């Protein structure tokens, strides 16, 4: 798998994406595509870095909470509000199917994506800890993009390097 993963909302299905799925609302209306690229270079201007483990072209449909603060509203990743959101993610007794923070650079919080499935997904996503940092879009996502990732062990809230979206990544073993 590529070292980097990029996510973006786009109007049309991008031919260059490694995986993509239609976004919609709970009324059945479609609102573009959420696309993922596994590559080093940024594929589109609006793309943000994500934990590559969440991408699974065979993944089932899900409900997501997508936090994507506007460029003029970025907080630093180490802001205490973002730290506390990460603590609340770890404390959750029912972990999400997939979760990643989003990065726009090495120092700012570029948002988060949380995916859940099952009858209580909507209720649980309303408690997305990251929506206290920036507004969250609750949306449906069709099959073909998001998988299931084992939740982090805890209690580490730090990134494994400023270029690595939490909770993914690890430091290289000592050679």
């Amino acid at each position, binding site marked *: 798998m590529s070292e980097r993963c990029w996510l973006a909302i786009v109007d049309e299905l991008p031919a260059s994406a490694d995986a993509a799925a239609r976004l919609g609302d709970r009324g059945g209306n479609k609102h573009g595509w959420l696309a993922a690229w596994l590559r080093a270079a940024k594929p589109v201007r609006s793309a943000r870095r994500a934990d590559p483990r969440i991408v699974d072209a065979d993944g089932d449909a899900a409900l997501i909470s997508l936090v994507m603060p506007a460029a003029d509203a970025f907080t630093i990743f180490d802001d205490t509000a973002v730290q506390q959101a990460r*603590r609340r993610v770890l*404390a959750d007794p029912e972990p999400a199917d997939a979760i990643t923070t989003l990065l726009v650079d090495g120092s700012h919080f570029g948002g988060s994506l949380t995916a859940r499935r099952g009858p209580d997904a909507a209720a649980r996503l309303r408690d997305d800890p990251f929506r206290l940092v920036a507004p969250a879009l609750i949306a449906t996502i069709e099959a073909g993009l998001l998988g299931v990732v084992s*939740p*982090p062990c805890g209690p580490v809230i730090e990134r494994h390097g400023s270029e690595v979206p939490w909770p993914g990544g*690890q*430091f290289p073993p000592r050679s």
Partner: protein
Amino acid sequence: MRLEPGDAFPDLVAVDHAGRSRSIGELAAGDPLVLQTYRGFWCPKEQAFFRSLLHLQEEAEVAYTSIVSLSVDPPEVAAAFRAGLGARWTFLSDPEREHIDALGLRETTDTVHNPYLPTLIVLTPGLEIHSAYNGYWYWGRPSMEELRCDLREVTRAIRSDWDISQ
């Protein structure tokens, strides 16, 4: 088995507090890991020791150190205990006692609960035992200062940039 420093700890698989199957190696994920076995939520000694671990949690969360607690409590009981404590690490459940004898950690003096012997093991990311503490008697358990010393040694050994001036 005996839990001796330098020995390999088995990459056992158990169910976590949310009902997902997890392995110790996956949970370590490249970081040092503090593995605690405990009798059960009902034991006052465990409750006291967990209060110490909660203090360590505040440092482990920024020190790239994973914590795992393992007991015979079923997942739903472990989940409730975890939530009540305010723990943000993984609790594993072994209600069928699949691993307790292989690890040599059955507390044979308690024939009512048949729990895990209270033990604390510091593991490297490769699941080598760095240190192990028998907590049957409470003072056999490590102080948080002893754990800090252990974790310093493990981290120094595994992080190539420990001394950035070298």
